[in-house]
């Protein structure tokens, strides 16, 4: 049997060199045929024209040092950008008309936000849901005093202290979990600790005095972030409730939710803003003053809740009925099965659309400039109306566009990342 023929495969031939490496890639993707090569040339021309125009204007021909617009125009005319105007206005673009000596409060407020959010990204922290919820619900209380300041009554003082407690508690939890001392934060000890923390916070807050900065002085990127932050925080829970209401088997609740959602989704945001701007003072008892910022925030929140509700409804519809039935069979009630079984799965599916809606909300905050708030866009417009920089429009718009782009683009990239990470167990 030793001389039996055994199949001896020959070694495979290497792929033709023309399909390998850089050359292969270029042949395959850029010049695979004559029309394709022509398209590549066209594309190359578009890229060259775009970049040479933008770089030439923004960097090569740009003016970096000047006292006013006239000087810029005398130097390069309209061929180059006039950046000194934007540079001079950067504080206003970011903080609006906020008093210069108080600007540290905005920075400190955002630093607290970042510090509060740090435990969410630490791998060993387990109570991320609690910390995240605390951040969303309690941070606005703390931030309100940082940003607004002034006289705090008894109730507001207590709420601010609650915010401070939340911040300290998050970090205490994170540290305890890092050192595996979780039992410290369980049972009765936890409540004693919390009460102690709250007492300390009350003491701190009662001694803490900041000058009042009226909301009409708020502006720039800061105001944009405040409005969109409010909108994002309110619209997700409100949207979930509305979506559950719309899917409810109780006809009246479903009707109320559906009417609300359809009404707000079918009109443009600007009409909602106008409506609240002119009608909110009519709706409230005479003498109750609602400031412009609050009117805009209410309008933005209601509007984005309606959009969020439809996204959540889509996510809920994608969950198979078996999940509801299984939850009911195990004996879970409506709220338990919704919050423990259905929503966690639905939210994961919805991440791209939810983030998309947040991006939309962030972009839509520019509309408040039309009803007279000084957000980032109106600040950019104000540069060209400044007597020193009269007519300087394109440069501040370019700068502000970059800011919006960085925010929105990083949000969407983060959502891809999140989607990939959370979907890891689902991939086959």
């Amino acid at each position: 049997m030793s001389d039996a023929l055994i199949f001896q495969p020959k070694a495979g031939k290497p792929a033709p060199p023309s399909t390998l490496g850089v050359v292969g890639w270029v042949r395959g993707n850029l010049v695979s045929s004559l029309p394709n090569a022509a398209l590549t040339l066209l594309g190359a021309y578009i890229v060259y024209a775009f970049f040479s125009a933008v770089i030439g204007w923004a960097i090569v021909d740009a003016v970096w040092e000047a006292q006013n617009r006239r000087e810029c125009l005398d130097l390069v005319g309209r061929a180059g950008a006039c950046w000194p105007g934007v540079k001079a206005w950067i504080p206003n673009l970011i903080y609006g008309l906020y008093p210069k000596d108080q600007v540290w409060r905005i920075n400190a407020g955002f630093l607290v936000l970042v510090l509060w959010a740090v435990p969410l990204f630490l791998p060993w922290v387990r109570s991320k849901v609690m910390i995240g919820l605390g951040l969303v619900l309690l941070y606005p209380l703390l931030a309100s005093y940082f940003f607004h300041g002034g006289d705090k009554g008894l109730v507001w003082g207590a709420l601010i202290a609650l915010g401070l407690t939340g911040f300290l508690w998050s970090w205490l939890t994170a540290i305890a979990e890092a050192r595996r001392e979780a039992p410290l934060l369980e049972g009765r000890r936890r409540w004693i600790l919390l009460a102690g923390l709250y007492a300390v916070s009350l003491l701190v807050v009662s001694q803490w005095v900041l000058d009042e900065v009226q909301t009409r002085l708020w502006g720039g990127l800061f105001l944009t972030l405040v409005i969109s932050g409010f909108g994002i925080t309110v619209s997700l829970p409100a949207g979930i409730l509305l979506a559950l209401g719309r899917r409810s088997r109780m006809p009246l609740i479903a009707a109320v939710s559906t009417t609300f959602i359809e009404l707000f989704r079918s009109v443009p945001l600007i009409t909602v803003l106008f409506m609240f701007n002119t009608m909110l003072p009519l709706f409230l008892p005479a003498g109750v003053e609602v400031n412009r910022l609050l009117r805009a925030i209410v309008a933005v929140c209601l509007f984005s809740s309606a959009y969020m509700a439809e996204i959540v409804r889509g996510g809920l519809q994608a969950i198979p009925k078996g999940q509801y039935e299984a939850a009911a069979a195990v004996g879970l009630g409506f709220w338990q099965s919704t919050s423990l079984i259905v929503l966690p799965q639905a939210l994961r599916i919805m991440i791209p659309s939810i983030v998309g809606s947040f991006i939309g909300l962030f972009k839509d905050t520019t509309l408040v400039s039309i009803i007279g708030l000084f957000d980032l866009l109106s600040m950019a417009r104000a540069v060209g109306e400044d007597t020193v920089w009269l007519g300087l429009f394109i440069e501040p718009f370019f700068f502000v566009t970059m800011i919006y782009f960085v925010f929105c683009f990083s949000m969407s990239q983060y959502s891809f990342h999140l989607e990939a990470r959370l979907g890891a167990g689902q991939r086959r």
Partner: protein
Amino acid sequence: MTTPILSNATARAIFYQALTVLGVVLLFWYTITNTVENMSQRGMSAGFDFLDVSAGFGIGFKLIDYREGDSYLRVFEVGIANTLLVAVIGIALATVIGLVVGLARLSGNWLISTIARWYIEMLRNTPLLLQIIAWYFGVFNLLPRPRDSVEWGGLFFLNNRGFYLPSPEPGQGFGLTLIALAAGIAAAFVVRAHARQRLFETGKLPRVIPAMIALVILPALLVFALTGQPLAWNVPVLRGFNFQGGTSVPPSFCALIIALSIYTSCFIAEIIRSGIQSVSHGQTEAARALGVKPSRTMRYIILPQAMRVIIPPLISQYLNLTKNSSLAIAIGFPDLVSVWMNTSLNQSGRAIPIVAMTMGFYCAVSLAVSLVMNRYNRRAMLSER
């Protein structure tokens, strides 16, 4: 077995609904009593009687006739006409650009698809309002004066006062040409139906497109020549400091249309891309295995299936564009929100009827569109399995 009232599902449902209704009623009662009191204090009225009153302000751009003495109702109509004009032109342009960009995004050419991708990312990650204002202040306001207009063939002129184009002025008997054109189009459709019939009977597709084009163009041209060419073009001419004659649209209109259609085209491009990608590759392979030509594969196999995925979000983008046209107010183009919810409201002080009418218009448009959409969806769904 009796269940205690607290855990009886029906009783709880009734209780919760009663609570909701009570809440809604209380909210309405509270706002309405406050509103009535506030309005009587300020001497305002909520009636619609002001609609007949002369509005007394001019409107810079109007599609339908309007003079300063006309009533508020006419202002409302002018606003609606302008909004619809922006919507229709914007939708047409956005679809064309979106289609081109969407196909470029799908291109096998790496450079082209990368350019398309970054075009989409750049434009949809920046606010539309910013784009509108940038186009207005950054481009159309900086155009040369009428004397140094950018011109194309002495017919179209672009300057900082707007865009000027020739307007047609039909003379006696031009209606006959239109009738001939309509008849030609009808005949072309008959030919096409006949060709399809032949295709189903014999399996051969006759070449009918040249015949169809000839049927549409030739009779109309013939009638036009026979009736003595009854169509004159009113070409804009520079007189003094500005152009006379022709049709013109203001810079704000150009900025609005360009910004709206470019912004919406990004979303449309993504919709078209995902729609075409949603048709599984097996369909293309099956078609090739049957020997169907690539062009026909696209036309008869991929597109009909992709359309089902594309149409619903596409329509919702069209609706978005219509709603977004309300941003015209930022650059002073007189659309519905600008002339009605802003100027008329400030002048007449009738906040409630004006807000209700504006929202009513947008609600009516969306409701009508969603009704049509639901019917389409039902039809598209039926043809599945």
